[in-house]
């Protein structure tokens, strides 16, 4: 072991150290939601946590923030996860790791979702028609979490068999068998089930239950 640095300091040597200024300027302006928190001990905490919170909340839906419930915020960011070939969708938002309090991302996104669904802006009622029946129904798509649940609810509501998306068996002669189609934002009628559920929710305008032998 080399000589010069103190490898085992003593309390005496350190007790003469003057307390460091509380404004640790450890972060450059471009990083850190917690810059405000850092700047002074007397900083009013609520302003800093609100700036953190707005950043944290907005990051939730787009990026994975692998926070564990302990304070090991940065360790969860394994730098080796960054690969050059990763698409822009997957580039990690490292900044969001600085969030406080240290709540797991999976939990955080559930809570954010819950707080959104309690406000009416996040229910998604669409019209549903069944072929041959002039009066339609309305259904809240956000009450369901998967295609399966949706098809089940509609089958029950309209008292018919609706084939699940992904089942490729179309009966040759279909009597009371239907499939589910939807009108997207561009006005086109599409088969339900080809795109991931969340993406479907953003593009669906209305639903139609069509006879299977028509498709």
């Amino acid at each position: 072991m080399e000589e010069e640095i103190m490898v085992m300091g003593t309390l005496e040597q350190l007790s003469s150290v003057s307390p460091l200024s509380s404004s640790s300027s450890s972060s450059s302006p471009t990083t850190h939601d917690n810059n405000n928190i850092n700047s002074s001990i007397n900083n009013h905490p609520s302003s800093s946590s609100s700036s953190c919170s707005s950043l944290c909340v907005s990051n939730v839906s787009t990026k994975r923030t692998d926070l564990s419930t302990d304070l090991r915020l940065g360790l969860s960011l394994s730098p080796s996860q960054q690969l050059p070939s990763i698409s822009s969708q997957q580039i990690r938002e490292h900044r969001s790791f600085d969030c406080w309090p240290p709540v797991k991302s999976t939990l955080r996104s559930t809570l954010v979702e819950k707080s959104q669904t309690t406000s009416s802006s996040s229910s998604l009622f669409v019209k549903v028609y069944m072929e041959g029946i002039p009066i339609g129904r309305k259904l809240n798509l956000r009450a369901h979490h998967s295609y399966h649940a949706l098809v089940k609810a509609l089958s029950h509501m309209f008292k018919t068999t609706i084939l699940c998306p992904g089942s490729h068996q179309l009966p040759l002669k279909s009597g009371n068998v239907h499939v589910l189609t939807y009108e997207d934002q561009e006005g086109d009628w599409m088969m339900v089930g080809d795109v991931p559920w969340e993406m479907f929710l953003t593009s669906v305008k209305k639903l139609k239950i069509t006879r299977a032998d028509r498709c």
Partner: protein
Amino acid sequence: MAGAYPWLEEIRLKRMVVSDESLEIIAKSFKNFKVLVLSSCEGFTTEGLAAIAANCRNLRELDLRESEVEDLSGRWLSDFPDSYTSLESLNISCLGNEVNLLALERLVSRCPNLKTLRLNRAVPLDRLPNLLRGAPQLAELGTGAYTSEMRPDVFSNLAEAFAGCKQLKTLSGFWDALPSYLPAVYPICSQLTSLNLSYATVQSPDLIKLVSLCEKLQKLWVLDYIEDDGLEILAASCKDLRELRVFPSDPFGLEPNVALTEQGLVSVSEGCPKLQSVLYFCRQMSNAALNTIARNRPNMTRFRLCIIEPRSPDYLTLQPLDDGFGAIVEHCKDLRRLSLSGLLTDRVFEYIGTYGKKLEMLSVAFAGDSDLGLHHVLSGCDNLRKLEIRDCPFGDKALLANAAKLETMRSLWMSSCSVSFGACKVLGQKMPRLNVEVMDESGPPDSRPESSPVEKLYVYRTVAGPRLDMPGFVWTMDDDSALRIS
């Protein structure tokens, strides 16, 4: 590895990037492969899982806990051949999309040794009874979304199916839990030892009814919707409780949204003699409460407290919480893990260094006044293995003075502290058996003066030398050059 250990049976990885190619290699190279646990991993898709399903004839355990999987389709599950019956544990709770439910039902019912089944949110509640009936020997279940149109037939079907699982001891899942469906689990509450309700956004009365029936409960994870009242009932009902975690339902709100305070934790510490592991998020704390908790539970081994507002003082006296945490380390002589929060001075670290002799892991945020704080910990905690620090005024002196200590530890993490780039270089140069990694996204640290603080510092002992696979914002300080970029 495939060449070297063809008889490899188990692989467990955490926080690693795993590709589909790797999964394919695993699937095809290890004939007797039995256990794959990927914890918080990422980089693979359901195609990789398909390879595992199709090829690993002897697979017993597939656990993807909290991994991020690119979920291309739920078809992969059907790739388990009909002849495959050895599954004992399946955890797909992290998957986003629906798996093929029929394939899942068939898989579950043909594997007689299936003990653990953790479903993902996309498995609808009305399909759960079939799954349970196919595996009445199940010991651990994670439900999917715990909500459905309220229909009596669905409810009774579910309750009956739960009642048939006489060995079920662990329950989790409960996404989107509808309170009216919670009673379906009442028939088995008395046999439960572990209950994870951290995704169940239901209110206190419903939680209380559930929890009060679980007389054998040893582990409870729950949201703060349970409130102080609920924790009091817990303390009265669950005398075997060993671990409690209470998570915040509104972590970023400025005002409390629930009636959960330090009192809840005090009640549990009084009523549950075996309580030894705590993780508690709350918005107020007092030295008096911490003192009471410490005296009630000297058998505490893990104590992690997160007072949501950084630097919150004792709400009664407005003093720092040094004495309260001091009481914890003094009375809980077997304390192995501690997380601090609230307003804390160097004094708390003096207590920790003095009393925390068995402490192995310490997490610190927004605490302390000076390097003395860090020095107390590094010089006093004989068994310290992992130390993680953020936003504390700790700098070069304590770090360099205790450099040798770092070789006895597993790792040190410091972010947003006052450690200078120059000190990191010195540390790296003088301690060849440590990897001193500096992470800085604003550019190479040597583009700034040596005295400027680094964003993040990670120090750990190594026999393998510096890593060669780091991304551009990570630098190793070592003796070859002051700065090496991989």
